[in-house]
């Protein structure tokens, strides 16, 4: 898809988000901890990007995530 730039923290507005797949792109920057506020998330894929930094603690707290790929 050739996504460049970074993941905006505004994504936390999408509270009903269940699936977010940004896999295999050229995203840079860090994973916004705001992703951890999306309680309905079941599938989160950010693999194969150029993201830096640690996986935020908030994301680890997501209960519903059955599958996540980093």
């Amino acid at each position, binding site marked *: *898809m050739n996504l460049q730039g970074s993941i905006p923290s505004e994504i936390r507005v999408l509270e009903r*988000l269940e699936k977010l797949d940004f896999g295999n792109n050229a995203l840079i920057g860090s994973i916004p901890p705001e992703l951890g506020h999306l309680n309905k998330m079941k599938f989160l894929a950010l693999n194969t990007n150029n993201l830096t930094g640690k996986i935020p603690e908030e994301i680890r707290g997501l209960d519903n995530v059955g599958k996540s790929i980093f």
Partner: protein
Amino acid sequence: MGSKDDARKKFRLKVPTSIAVMPIRTKLTIISSTIFFCSILFVASLHDFGLGEFDFWMFEYNDFNFDFQTNRNHKFEIDSVLEINEDDWVSSLEKESGPEELFRFRKASILSRILDEDISSAEMLYNNSSPQGKAFNYIVEQDKRQLHPDEHLLLQRYALAVLFFATQGDEWTYGNLHFLTGVQECYWRKKVHMTLLGVSACDSKSHVTHIQLCKYNTAADWKLFFNGICGK
């Protein structure tokens, strides 16, 4: 006579025996079924290249037709469109104070809503070259829907616009996937190689539930046709 026989021999040599021996009825059946399957494949490939989605283009000319045609099985979505169209806040405010005042009022209301709910910082919003500033300008000025500042889905539309600008949507491999067009944001999507990219699903109240902006398979196009871009 001799030359005719030679010609026949040459012809028979070129055609495989099994086909040459077949009765004419069988040959016709094979040819017609081949044409039939080829035409099916052709129509399927048209759809795969996005040509089957001409209903999105129709929207540009007629808002209501678009929503009526694609959502005829989803009454709630038609209702939500009518709600926006029939809203008379614009006309009432315009009568009272004029279009410029209305524009400023709407801009200020949207700005304060984004700031009050702590979605973006003022610094980013006031910066016209930041994704947040661009998305704010889009919602306020360019967006054909011109949502009411209190419309509950306004922030969702803003967030998706920020996502578009932050990830350089102009350079996405398969185009803008209808992002930033006048359709409701649940239709900011496009089917490419049997895969729905963009906002791939919403719930019954038009809240975004799935976003798919991936590309796992880098195989040849004909393989993508069967396997999808994001894998099965």
